[in-house]
C-alpha cells in the first residue's frame, strides 16, 4: 500500500483540527506544521507496515486481513494515548 493521496491526508488533517476544537485542546503549531505531521505519520505507517506485520504472531499474521490488522493497531494506539 502506498502513502495516502494528499486529498485523503487533507481529510485526516481537517478531522484532527475538528477534534482539537471539540476538545478545546490548545495547539501551538500552525496548520502547515500540523499537516506536515499528518504527512509524516502516514509516511511512517507506510514505511513500517512490513515491520508491524512481522511483529504479529501466528496464526493472526496469516489469518487476519490487512483491514483487521490495521484495526488492531489503531485501537491499541488510541487506548495507549487515551485518544477518543
Amino acid at each position: 500500500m502506498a502513502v495516502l493521496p494528499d486529498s485523503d491526508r487533507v481529510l485526516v488533517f481537517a478531522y484532527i483540527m475538528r477534534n482539537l476544537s471539540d476538545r478545546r485542546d490548545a495547539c501551538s503549531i500552525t496548520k502547515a506544521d500540523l499537516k506536515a505531521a499528518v504527512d509524516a505519520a502516514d509516511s511512517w505507517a507506510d514505511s513500517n507496515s512490513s515491520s508491524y506485520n512481522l511483529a504479529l504472531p501466528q496464526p493472526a499474521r496469516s489469518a487476519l486481513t490487512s483491514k483487521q490488522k490495521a484495526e488492531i493497531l489503531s485501537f491499541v494506539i488510541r487506548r495507549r494515548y487515551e485518544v477518543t
Partner: protein
Amino acid sequence: MATGYINLFPGGVATDGSGTINNAAALSYEVSAAAQTTNTPKATQMKLLFDAATDEHWTFSFMIPGDYSSNGTLRGKVKFTSATTGNAIMKGGQVSSVDSSTDDDALVFVAGDVSSAVAAPGTQGQTIGFTITLTSTNMSANRKIVVFIGRDADNASDTATGDLELLALNFEYTTA
C-alpha cells in the same frame, strides 16, 4: 460627521450549503466555565464557529440607516478554540438593493473583502479584534443591504489550527 454602528451578531442566518463554498458556520452556545460571583448567573453567549479547513459564512440583512453618508466596515471580536499561534483571515462583503432597479431575487455580493491577519493570542480564551473595509458599491441611506462574514480558511495567510469563534460583529459607517 461621526461613526454610526449597527450590531449584527448575535443575529443573522446561515448560508444553505448550495452552490460553491456556500457553507455555513456553526451556531454555538457558550456557558462560562468559571465560578459565579454571588447573585449572578453564568456568563452565557452565542458564538459562530468557523472551520480551519473549509470556508464558512454567515449572513445578515438590514436597512442602511437614514444618517448613512459613506463607507462601510465590519468590526468584530473573535477568539480561537485551539490555536495559540498563527493567523486567521476573515472575509466579508455586501450587496445593496436599489429600489425599482436591483433584482432582489438574484443578489450577488459585490466583492469578497478580507481583513488583515488576525493573530491568535498566545493563551486560549483571549479575544482579538478585526476589521474589514467593505467595497461600498450601491450603499446608500435607507437601502436594504445583505452582508456576509466568513473565515477565509483556504487563504495562504490563514495559518491558525482549529476553529475560530466569532463573538460579536458590528457594521460601522460614516454618518452625514
